[in-house]
């Protein structure tokens, strides 16, 4: 219990961010027309690619001699970049087609 409380107080601002973000996410998505569901899913998909920052941090913290961490971190950065770049580019390609047609 003590451990939990000290963990919570150490991360209390994170806890607030967590709770508020949940509501923001629900609120922002609540009113999306079904036309945009696919691009939205794809855009959200790109945003969770923010995990790449974790992979970069792993690499920055790993020493030059920590070979396993460097190898796994290297792969993780590649995968994270794929998620981010691929996600945003694919979403942009889809949305490009939604431009209003002028007769």
């Amino acid at each position, binding site marked *: 219990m003590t451990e939990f409380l000290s963990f919570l107080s150490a991360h209390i601002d994170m806890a607030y961010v967590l709770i508020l973000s*949940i509501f923001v*996410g629900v609120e922002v998505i609540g009113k999306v027309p079904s036309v945009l569901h696919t691009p939205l899913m794809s*855009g959200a998909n790109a945003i*969770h690619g923010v995990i*790449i920052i974790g992979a970069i941090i792993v*690499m920055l913290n790993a020493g030059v001699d920590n070979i396993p961490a460097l190898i796994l971190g290297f792969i*993780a950065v590649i*995968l994270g970049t794929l998620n981010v770049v691929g996600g945003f580019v694919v979403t942009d390609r889809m*949305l490009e087609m939604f431009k*209003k047609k002028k007769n």
Partner: protein
Amino acid sequence: MEHSILELFYLAGSLTFIIGLKMLSHPETARRGNLLAAAGMGLAIMGTLIFYKSGVPMLIYALIFGAMIIGTISGWIAAKKVQMTAMPQMVSIFNGMGGACAMLIGLIEFHHFLESDDNLGLLTVLASMVIGSVSFAGSVIAWAKLNGNMKREIRLPKYNILNTAIMIIIVLLTAVIIGGWVPETPAIYVLFVLSLIYGILLVIPIGGADMPVVISLLNSFTGMAAAFAGFLYNNHVMLTGGILVGSAGTILTVVMCKGMNRSLTNVIFGAFGGGGATASGISGSGDKSVRDINISDTAVLLNYSKKVIIVPGYGLAVAQAQHVIHELETILEERGVEVKYAIHPVAGRMPGHMNVLLAESNVDYEKLIEMDLINPEFPTTDVVLVVGANDVVNPAAKNDPGSPIYGMPILDVESAKNIIVNKRSMSAGYAGIDNELFYNPKTSMLFGSAKQVLTELVTELKNMN
């Protein structure tokens, strides 16, 4: 000082994610929203590289940049080359990459928490690893299924019990590891393997129209994995980004389930196309007959209609017939026929997928009408042209409680004056069930591949002047 600058970068990143997502929910601002979020992401990544830590050896920077260049080039090429019809697979595999990233971070980082005896930190890292692994394995299976690499139905006996058992074991094992009652390192590797197996088993039995729901669910899983990793590093941008996607993905999943009138538990635990399919298969076979119609009769019928509604399905996209259907629409409009498209929420392979496919071939999105708005219009419609759609117009969803799609809202095409269904053959739809609509006395079947049939229709209509 440097740390405060980094926090500023992260704040900007979080803000662009929220505003970007908000802008993504309106057709006019969606594209800019996406670019804004991308810019914020770039800022957050750059900030981390520059300000997170000083005195890092050059070799490490070289490795990071090398990895980012490889990822950027391959991601860019894959995203630019992918066919619009293959979009669900693409989203699924990119999602899997994110999951795998979380998984690897977990695999690297758990050692530190074992050493420092930080139990809750360890719990966070394990949560990120488990969710990331499930998302990765599940996404790969979803990709293979959508891509047609896994055509055969694989159905393990009692998979519901099996899946639930694995899930319980994962939770218990995590608790035991945190408690320190087993040798941690080997137990964590067992946990990792179990998570992968769970991800595979979660997606394998799911098929048919439920696939989009699973992709969306896995999407929110990866979001949660990113959020846990954010908690781990006390990193606000990862936390907000992850949680936003986690909650947005969950809402989107629920919206999709509602579109099919099914609960999430039903999607995950209910076998789709299992027992119910055989039951309605019996009612479909036998004495009923269908009526054929040829190209020229169809052309005449369309030409002298006042109002035509086109119901496009995934078959249309597979046949690459989106452009021809737009041509057909243009010709009919020139003749004074009112043409609209009826878009079912799960038309295509993902919600909104059909809209993207039609938008690609220059169809005005104001002509794409959602199900609830178009259903009252069918009684005043002369001809409904169903192209490559099946399950979304199947009356069994309303009439046959034994049907696996019973309860799914459908497009009410039966109330139109004439129904023309274009299909390659009488085979069942993606959900694998028979369709009573084809035997309706008002229905005429126009057999042939969508692209060929529509092209001939266009030629026929042009000659009719």
